[in-house]
């Protein structure tokens, strides 16, 4: 099972619109990497470059030891030993479920007719569609169509599997179910997979690693946890989960200041006087009564006043104005404590939760 390597890919549409700019990414064998980003970030273009539908203007795409795409030469999609699942499922309405699934097997000359039928049947069993062989796609529900699309892609035993927002047409419940289903199939078959999505929760559930794309570039690659806890840029911090962005000035190598607010952050190389943006996740902040003694040693303690409180059932969402500063922090607290707007509070902010971002100066 080979991996995929995208090297400095560039793809332009028209004269100056670059959909993909210098994109480099490695997908290791048997790994599932999600390409995550808002619409228009170039993730689908990247996928279509990998599939061979598009020719790169610069850069190369390697699968194992073979270079499949370069500006000089593109191996056509039909000879790439890949499979793809499309946003629209792209099931052929004039073929039955069995014919749809069997289509790719017709190009594997080593298979006998019987083998083919057996594999189609097996695969339909795997996606829980046994007995649907002679139905037409138009007679299936959205979720069933999705499973047919999955079966059609997996039955050919591709080296690489590409998925283009495969769940975006399903309703919310089905979508959650299918996330786990896809992850289960990945663990079972272990196919190297690139998965395009704009849904961060989906990416976090399904993938081994996530590559966040912004304007045609990979801005950060990592596991869900890495991206969440150590976002490198404001874009990543804001795109993955909710966060507080504090714009401040470096007061020392590990300290920032904004008005009366002083915070020690998870860094030791800040240049005093430089502008710094810091990401603080709302759930990382603890809220205390002014009268309560301090908890964790070394954490930042900040005085503030509750401005808004919203009860959400499993949590309470507060907005707290920091005393002597115009910074407002959102805090996600357990419902056990209860503050009212106007209450004076102390915010306990662990140093490790204050992540300075790389593009602070922008």
């Amino acid at each position, binding site marked *: 099972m080979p991996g995929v390597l995208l090297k400095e890919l560039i793809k332009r549409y028209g004269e100056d619109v670059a959909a993909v700019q210098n994109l480099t990414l490695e997908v290791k064998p048997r790994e599932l990497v999600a390409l995550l980003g808002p619409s228009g970030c170039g993730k689908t273009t990247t996928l279509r470059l990998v*599939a*061979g*539908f598009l020719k790169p203007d610069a850069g190369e795409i390697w699968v194992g030891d073979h270079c499949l795409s370069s500006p000089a030469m593109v191996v*056509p*999609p*039909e*000879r*790439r030993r*890949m*499979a*793809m699942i*499309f*946003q*629209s499922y*792209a*099931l*052929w*309405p*004039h073929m039955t479920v069995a014919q749809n699934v069997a*289509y*790719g097997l*017709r*190009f*594997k000359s080593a298979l006998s007719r019987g083998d083919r039928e057996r594999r189609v049947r097996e695969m339909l069993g795997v996606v829980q569609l046994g007995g649907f062989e002679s139905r*037409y*796609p*138009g*007679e299936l529900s959205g979720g069933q*169509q999705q499973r047919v699309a999955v079966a*059609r*892609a997996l039955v*050919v035993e591709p080296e690489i599997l*590409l998925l283009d927002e495969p769940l975006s047409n399903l309703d919310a419940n089905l979508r959650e179910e299918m996330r786990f289903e896809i992850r289960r199939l990945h663990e079972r078959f272990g196919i190297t997979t690139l998965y395009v999505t704009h849904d961060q929760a989906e990416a976090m559930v399904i993938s081994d690693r996530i590559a966040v794309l912004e304007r045609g570039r990979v801005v950060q690659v990592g596991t869900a946890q890495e991206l969440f806890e150590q976002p490198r840029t404001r874009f990543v911090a804001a795109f993955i989960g909710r966060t507080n962005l504090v714009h401040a000035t470096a007061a020392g190598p590990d300290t920032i200041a904004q008005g009366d607010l002083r915070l020690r952050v998870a860094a030791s190389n800040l240049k005093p006087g430089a502008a710094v943006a810091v990401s603080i996740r709302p759930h990382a902040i603890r809220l205390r009564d002014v009268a309560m003694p301090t908890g964790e040693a070394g954490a930042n303690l900040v005085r503030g006043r509750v401005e808004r409180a919203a009860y959400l059932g499993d949590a309470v969402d507060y907005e707290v104005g920091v005393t002597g500063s115009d910074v407002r922090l959102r805090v996600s607290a357990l419902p056990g404590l209860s503050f009212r707007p106007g209450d004076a509070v102390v915010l306990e902010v662990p140093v490790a939760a204050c992540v300075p971002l790389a593009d602070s100066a922008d």
Partner: protein
Amino acid sequence: MERAVPVWILAAVTLVVLMALPLGWLGWVSVSSEQGATLAHYAAVFQDPHLQKALWNTVVMAFWVGLASLAVGAPMAWLTARTDLPGKAVIRGLIMASFVTPPFLGAFAWVMLAGPNAGLLNKLYRGLTGSPEPLVNIFSMPGLIFVVAIYTFPYVYIMMVNTLALIASDLEEAASILGAGRLRVAATVTVPLVAPAMLSGFILAVLQALALFGSPAILALPAGFHTITTQIWAFFHYPPKMEMAAAFSIPLLLATALLLQLQKRLLGRRGYASIGGKGGQRRNIPLGRWRYPALAGCLAVLACAIFLPYSMLAKAALARSWAQPMTWDNLTASNFTFTFFEYSATKSAILNTLELGVLTATVGAGLAALLAYVANRRLILGHQVLAFLALAPVVIPGVVLAVGLFIAYTRPPFLLYGTLWILFVAYVTKEMPVGYSQADATFKGVHAELEDAGRILGAGRLRVLGEITAPLARSGIIATWCFIFIGVIRELSASIILFTPNTRVMSVVIFDLKEEGQFGAIAVLGLFMLVMTFATVILMQRVLGRDFMGVRE
């Protein structure tokens, strides 16, 4: 891009043969004289009071046809799209029937219905009222406008129905909930939303009227007035005045191009008309006690367009004398025997028509499909240009095209006049925009991902084309074929200038027969033409209906 070269050569040659050559010659002849370039022909054309009158007549006719089509087509569209009018399916079907009825047949039938003295309706009227005056005189400008409008209003209808279907009831209900009455909702929400469609339907109707030859020739000439098209045709009478015909064609060409440009602009800004097109529901508005009066109104219009003329044609085909009552004595099969067995032009005209219809439809649908596929899948550089070329002939009225083709192909290097090929070229050119739009819609309906899915699973481009695209596009392409075929068998305005005795088609034969008042034979041939047309329509609906099995939307 080397694979694009043959496509480009094909496109370039097609363009030259279909459009550049005829229009180039047309322009050149209109300004050329033995002394070199001149504007004398234009001066002659625009200073002649007789020709000025023809221009004015055309403007008047086209404008009123547009208004009348709007007045009839818009309410009918609203009634069938948005209300609980009974029998909507039947009414839609009949409107489609009037859409495909050759207008010259309608005009011809209306001569028998509403000729001021012998016309059956006028006779009836005089019999009932004792009045010596006729109720209507079809040989008049209002008569002409009426007959043209009853076959033109479907253009407005189609535009409007499609737009109305996109407007969700929510938009209107949002206004009702704010306190607007039903009329007020119509005036403040519905009408503004469909206004671009109304205007563009109006323009389409005007364009149809401008380009029409048959109805004015049948109704205006006996009344002693010309329109641009009949005048251009008259310029071909011996001794021919080709330069005048060319100079007189140019204003018609420019007017058409301008109006289309205007229409395109209107439609380009239409975006807001489809707001809520997807999720919104459409609920039928109850008409209450107006249900049956509204139905009667619709049926009255369709009586004028379908019931009366068709029965009149049937009567004329079966009667010795169409003006006499339908008694046993008056019943005869002689019109049929004469038309099919004694009149030697019939057989060759039917054969020519069929041959041209099949050939044009096949080549036209093939070419349209190729161009639409290439443009839709962006297979080659500059694919937008191909689309433009395929749609461009829509600005050329049939008569103008014919004048250009006549000039271009009666001289070397392409001596096509006298053969069916010149008619073939005319028909392919004329039908290309319709064919292309159909084929384009077809390929837009076949999602590109369906092809990509085949590619990535191991099928080559050609294989995908054969196994996936072709089966999915088949019904659409057959429909394209039918559209072109129907267009060809009814074509008169270009044929009337391009035919020779050996290359007469049915419409021309009908027109010839009309010139000597052979009502029985015209009726027989006309009915035959209608049978061919409706057989094709039914085939088309069958094909389109059956193959829509699994398309998920």
